[in-house]
């Protein structure tokens, strides 16, 4: 049984009545299906995270011009023409 409320909270989602039961049921089914992986012996196996031999290259510390205000304003109205504005966290 997964704690759907906790997961929703972490994911900043709040499923609506109706979709909630269905999604929860699906997720439980899917997670149950993952159990099959328990058959695999992974002792001593390194997790695969990066391509073989992958490593970072480094960028020079040189300033480049970023986005203009006009670019930002195509997607949001900026408060006082300069700030992103969002509801405050409760109790802060």
């Amino acid at each position, binding site marked *: 049984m*997964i704690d*759907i409320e*906790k*997961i*929703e909270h*972490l*994911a*900043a*989602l*709040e*499923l*609506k009545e109706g*979709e909630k039961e*269905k*999604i929860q049921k*699906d*997720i439980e*089914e*899917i*997670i149950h*299906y*993952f159990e*099959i*992986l*328990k*058959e*695999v012996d*992974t002792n001593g*196996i*390194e*997790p*695969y*995270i*990066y*391509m*073989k031999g*992958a490593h*970072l*290259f480094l*960028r020079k510390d040189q300033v480049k011009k970023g*986005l203009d205000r006009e*670019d*930002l304003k*195509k*997607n*949001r109205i900026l408060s006082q023409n300069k700030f*992103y504005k*969002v*509801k*405050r*966290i*409760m109790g802060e």
Partner: protein
Amino acid sequence: MDITELSISQLVKNIKSGEISVKEVMKSYIENINKKESKIKAFIHLDIDNALKKAEELDRMREKNGVLFGVPFAVKDNINVLNTETTAGSKILKGYISPYDATAVEKVKKENAIIIGKTNMDEFAMGSSTENSAFFPTHNPVNVEYVPGGSSGGSAAAVKSKEVLAALGSDTGGSVREPASFCGIVGLKPTYGLVSRYGLIAFSSSLDQIGPLARNVEDAAVLLNVIAGFDSRDETSVNIEKKDYTALLGKEIKGKKIGIIKEITDFDLQQEIKSALNKTVDTLNKLQAEVIEVSIPHLKYALPVYYIIAPSEASANLARFDGVRYGLIREGNNLKETYQLTRTEGFGEEVKRRILIGTFALSSGYYDAYYLKASKVRRIIANEFENAFKKVDALLLPTTATTAFKIGEKKSPLEMYATDIFTIPVNLAGLPAISIPSGNDKKGLPIGMQLIGKWFKEEELLQIAYSIENGG
């Protein structure tokens, strides 16, 4: 001459020689769009006026440069195009205007292709049918009652219906190859790191790769020449020497070793697909390639591995959609409510399902059993491919176990997930693979055959695919 029948190289040659104008090309394609788009619905965003303007611009150029000069082109809507709405098929990005070009788009533009629109897709590339688009489903041009596959279903359908000559898609677990297979075209998923992911809206960063959808292997190779290459804006981009991926096309494949994965028989294959596989083996024999059996014992675990890793990464990749800087916002009484309202309304059901699965798989107490375990099994699978490639030059298997299904036919998520069983292992191992058409089933629906190549050996993969395509 039917302009829309020409391959990329033929079309560009004809334009450059002055035989035809870009405007004529564009008009022919627009004619197809006008005829078909209302039924196919391949595009989320289509800008015909701009395409015509661009065509005129190109016609006025003295120097006609670029290997895609005047090519009518489409880009999957999860790839950023400057000053264009980029939604990734999601309501949460409806109206979002991108302030930059993805590297792959920059390269396509530099070769003077004309991007006429952004194609439909499963929301955030999560799906195998394009039914998960927040806007509308796309229809398979072969039979409009059927899905075109997904998630790059819009790109595949646009190419198949000749609304464009070629398109870009993205492939995280088969999203280029599966729709290519369902629509009867060619789809290539390059080696992880060959094509820059800069500007591709991330679904699963360790699996995503941009790839071309085209009518034939040669066109796919031409496109790969354009989009491949190191990019200093993507740390996972690999710095290898520049190659000409068309160089080996037409060279004989005599003596090449092609592996058939033994474990394929564990899965239920549609009868016609079995036959198509056998026919392809015959073709390879005819071409004097050596077909041998190899084993990927952990193949069947690829699906659960993928459905843990991809949602885990997605749960973080999709956290940026919070309503603060762009896209949908639904303001609540406080911040938490604003987040919840925005995200719950902005994301579709499948996306929410995967975000929740991924959040769960990474959460404290479950990380080791799910995310870490899956990553370890992923290593086992990648190692098995590596071993197989010590014996063979490429692997042959169907792209999918069945041909396209009807819109609305598949109900449960797990049923849908199983569609990608043969394409997913390739992404887990970061390998290159191509899907090429291999006849039709009884219903007339296309069958796709998949070839998997060695890491960064796309030229050889394309050579073999080309031989099969032309030697059958």
